[in-house]
């Protein structure tokens, strides 16, 4: 079952066509990750799924209805998005920013109910920013700030959450931290997550459903252990590699092939090749 599907999309910015006849279905309760080389259309697909980009042809369905025909606030109560770049307003506190996630549930009269308050507190607790509630967002580290934005998306309380490259610009420990948090939301809270990720190894480790894209087409989709092969990586990314089992998780781990020595690059390179041959 899929609450969120795309049927025969043509996606274009102005005249530039990014993808044609693209169809995907996001499995319910999955952690779906979209991967692919730069400019393959993965972020564009995510924008279309989150109704930021209107498809030139085809349609995106949310619970069986065309998403662009649904009231904006109603969609925002079902489908959340963590955009690639958001601006924290000057002088806003963590608690205030997270509270803004309640907007689609509020009205002119019902602006701040007890339920709002409780959900915002829970969102901050489950992302580990509860102690930062009174701090200003602009003085937090990049990793903390990303957690705050995720908390805001959580406060929106949507069963579906889309994340556009949530780990970009973060240090490696914060990348893992954010992905662990996503996995937690997926496993413990049963939310459906769709993320665009740059790092194939992160994708293979965390995704329950992987979509590999190239030139605006879906090349393969399925569980990472079923579809991540050396051929697929070569095909999608043009990278020759070995696939081994991740010693931590058993998921596929991509090991790029060693640099091929060019002819006549000197004794050092030759010696290294020799050593490699001897080892194998």
């Amino acid at each position, binding site marked *: 079952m899929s609450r969120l599907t795309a049927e025969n999309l043509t996606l274009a910015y102005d005249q530039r066509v990014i993808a044609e006849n693209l169809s995907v279905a996001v499995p319910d309760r999955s952690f779906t990750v979209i991967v692919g080389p730069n400019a393959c259309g993965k972020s564009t697909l995510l924008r279309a799924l989150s109704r930021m980009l209107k498809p030139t042809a085809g349609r995106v369905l949310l619970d069986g209805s065309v998403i662009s025909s649904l009231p904006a606030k109603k969609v925002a109560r079902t489908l959340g998005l963590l955009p690639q770049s958001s*601006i924290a307003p000057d002088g806003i506190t963590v608690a205030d920013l997270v509270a*803004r996630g309640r*907007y689609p549930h509020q009205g002119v009269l*019902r602006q701040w109910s007890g339920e709002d308050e409780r959900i915002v507190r829970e969102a901050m607790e489950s992302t580990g920013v509860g102690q930062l509630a009174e701090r200003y967002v602009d003085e937090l580290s990049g990793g903390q700030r990303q957690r705050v934005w995720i908390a805001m998306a959580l406060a929106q309380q949507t069963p579906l959450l889309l994340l556009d490259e949530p780990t970009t610009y973060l240090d490696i420990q*914060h990348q893992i931290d954010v992905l662990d948090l996503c996995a937690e939301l997926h496993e413990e809270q049963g939310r459906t997550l769709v993320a665009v990720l740059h790092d194939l190894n992160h994708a293979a480790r965390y995704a329950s459903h992987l979509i590999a894209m190239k030139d605006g087409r879906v090349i393969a989709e399925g569980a990472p252990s079923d579809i991540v092969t050396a051929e697929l990586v070569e095909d999608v990314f043009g990278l020759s590699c070995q696939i081994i089992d991740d010693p931590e998780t058993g998921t596929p781990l991509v090991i790029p092939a060693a640099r091929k020595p060019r002819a006549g690059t000197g004794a050092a390179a030759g010696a290294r090749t020799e050593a490699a041959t001897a080892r194998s």
Partner: protein
Amino acid sequence: MSSPVQSDKGRKTGRRVTPVRTGGGLSLRLDLRAVTVGVVLLVLALAASVALIGSGDYPMTPAEVLRTLTGGGDAGQQFIVQELRLPRVLVGLLVGAAFGIAGAVFQTVSRNPLGSPDVLGFGQGASVGALVVIVYFHGGTFAVAAGSVVGGVITGLAIFLLAWKRGIHGYRFVLVGIGAAAMLYAMVLYLLTKANIVEATRATTWMTGSLSGRDWSQVWPLAAVCAVLIPLALCYGRPLRMLEMGDDAAYALGVRVDRVRVVVLLAAVVLVASATAAAGPIAFVALTAPQLARRLTRSPGPNLLPAAVMGALLLVAADWSAQRLFGADQMPVGVLTGVLGGGYLIWLLVTERRAGRI
């Protein structure tokens, strides 16, 4: 990363936000500081109004002013207050409020403190409209006002069209506006060369922006515009606040980004044009009022209502100061706001530069 040790460092905000809830399902968040600031500014604006009514060639004490306003006082005082000075003060309050709230809308939408109507050429556009009426049609006060409204609204639409590229973006908007201001100023200068000395004097006085000689015929149209558009803008205050976080984030929260922007900007353009028609393009109130209000409330968001009250206070206080410093009706209020606002603009440019935003 969210270690408790780290969370103890840094500034604490100390803001008090009080939830207010009634049995009928009404619930609000009241930022005590913002509410207090709003009330204090309002009281100050009214006090400045009383002081302004009391000043002039026939000075009156605040007690006399209040007594006359509430129906007391002799016939002479009644005439001076009701017919001469009250309309002037009301125009001042309304113009200031309109500039303040319009400035807050523009700065929020462009996400830039410089994106305010006085920097973007609205004053110049309104001036072109007014000067065309003065120089070519020799129109009366009402015709000049109409000309300035037309000039201001056309300028607004032209800037939108030129800056529109899949929505409005801050920098584009500010840059197009600054370009428009320069071109429109050239047109103002051209029109002045075509004017005879009487027309030129009248045009220059109008362009300076002044509250002197305003009567009830200026109060009513402006009051009507404000009565409709200020509540409209306030209704859009919450979605406007979401826009601060970027289009995508606002859209994800269910804000109809383009519709909100078009509605609030149109409201702001009409408010600025109407205020300019009533008092001339009084400089820098729209630029400074939202920023000062924001610094006082220390609350994120467009702060629309505090900006409106701050605008009203600034304009009436500036008019009162001009009268105290230079004598009754010797100095148009636009000169004073120009000098003070220009200083503020320099300070703003320096701090924005330091913050790396320009």
